[in-house]
């Protein structure tokens, strides 16, 4: 009779993993190091928690008394987001086409890809600062910033989408003797248009979020209202603005889901 020897098979199926243990030690070591390096202490944190209590007390109930100011800031944010998305999407449509390596020769696609990468490396706030310094305070700086941010995102993804298309349809349209423009319109665009709409809707959403933020550095919109409320310690008004921002973003997310379903 064959029997299982319990001594022989008594091996832990979950072996001790030296690699993951090393990673965890590294992480713990890093946390200790960084707390020392940055001078973070528990006392400082605990003291702050007391202030948090006070801040919460002053934030609630939110104060909607100055709703006219709130509404005008919100309108400006929406305008910035819409104009920037519109212009940004149209520019990205062309830049994306020119950056696709399977449609364009290298001497066109490489510089365009560089331009797109440059738009993406800097955080929108830094771009906003530069635009505020060069075109002055106000909505224009916000619009230009978000156009740059949109190009960095949509043009890159759009170019990648074009590079993944099937070439059979292009050949079919070329075989009919179609011009280059017709090839783009009738064989490339139908394959990538729904993805392009998807990226654009996402970017509209994220421009809406960012348009409420660029105001902090002076580029117009609700962010400016928020920042000045912070500086005047009007925390109940701050709470009102934050609630408005969160609800407008949730509405935006809901609407963009509907648009995405239509273009599926």
């Amino acid at each position, binding site marked *: 009779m064959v029997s299982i020897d319990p001594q022989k098979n008594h091996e832990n199926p979950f072996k001790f993993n030296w690699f993951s243990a090393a990673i965890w030690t590294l992480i713990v070591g890093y946390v200790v190091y*960084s707390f020392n390096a940055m001078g973070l202490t528990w006392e400082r944190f605990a003291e702050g928690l007391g*202030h948090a209590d006070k801040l919460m007390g002053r934030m609630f109930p939110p104060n909607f008394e100055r709703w006219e100011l709130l509404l005008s800031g919100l309108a400006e944010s929406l305008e910035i987001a819409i*104009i920037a998305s519109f212009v940004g999407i149209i520019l990205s449509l062309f830049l994306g086409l020119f950056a696709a390596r399977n449609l364009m020769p290298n001497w066109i696609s490489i510089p365009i890809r560089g331009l797109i990468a440059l738009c993406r490396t800097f955080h929108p706030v830094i771009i906003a600062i530069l635009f505020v310094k060069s075109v002055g305070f106000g909505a224009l700086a916000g619009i230009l910033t978000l156009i740059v941010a949109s190009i960095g995102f949509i043009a890159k993804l759009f170019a990648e989408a074009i590079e993944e298309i099937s070439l059979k349809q292009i050949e079919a349209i070329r075989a009919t003797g179609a011009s280059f423009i017709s090839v783009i319109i009738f064989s490339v665009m139908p394959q990538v248009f729904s993805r392009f709409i998807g990226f654009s809707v996402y970017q509209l959403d994220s421009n809406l979020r960012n348009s409420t933020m660029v105001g902090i*550095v002076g580029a117009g919109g609700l962010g400016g209202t*928020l920042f000045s409320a912070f500086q005047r310690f009007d925390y109940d008004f701050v709470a009102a603005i934050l609630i408005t921002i969160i609800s407008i973003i949730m509405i935006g997310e809901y609407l963009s889901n509907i648009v995405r379903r239509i273009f599926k």
Partner: protein
Amino acid sequence: MTTIDHHWQRFTLKQKLSRYAVYLVLIMAMVQSIQSVEVIPEFFYDAPEQMADMFNRMWPIDFAYYQVAVHDAMIETLNIATLGTLVTLIFAVPLALMSSHNISSSRWGHWIAKFFLVSSRSVNSLVWALLFVSIFGPGVIAGVLAIALRSVGFVGKLLGEAIDEVHMGSIEALKATGASWMSILLKGYWPQVLPAFFSIILFRWDINVRESAVLGLVGAGGIGVVLSDSMNLFEWQQVSIALLAIFAVVIVAEIVVVQIRKRLI
């Protein structure tokens, strides 16, 4: 003989109408925005000249300033990003577990988790930083917490989705052995979400490096403080070295993340 009298159409009438409705709404919104936005056209025409002037003043780059202030601030920025990403996990992992359909079946749990995840994402990191600066005062601690709370939504959502995609086979096998809840989590779920977990964390760290570079503008520590100080003093040559440092670090962070992902996954 009957003739076939319908044309082939790519979209149904309803699809067409709803698409045109979206286009129409977009164009109307655009026209309305252009009419009511307050832009001074002179500023717009003037922009290229002003930009050229700004870049002129940035040149030559003040490399000596790197050792004076930029280096330490840059290290601080990296620390804020990394520590913030680690602190995120404290909040994001429980929320991800709560929001995953595999692990918790309570509807209330899903809603609560979703509410926290969405609110974390809706508030921008600069706004989080403003809040924490008014609680903890200017400094690194506000930056770390701002990064952490901003990332919760992103990490929690993606981690929750990764847990949802786990194969239930090994989980059921573990359950059949009578394993405790904690062992199922550690030996059943964890090995399966591990690659997704590291890839999410690395991705977020890359984003956090970019974000922590600007937090200093509202006083939350890091290179942003140097940047805003130099800008307020109109020391444009110092601004350019700070921008160059940010640019270099962002590129290096992206390369590091791409390399680690290639090895790991």
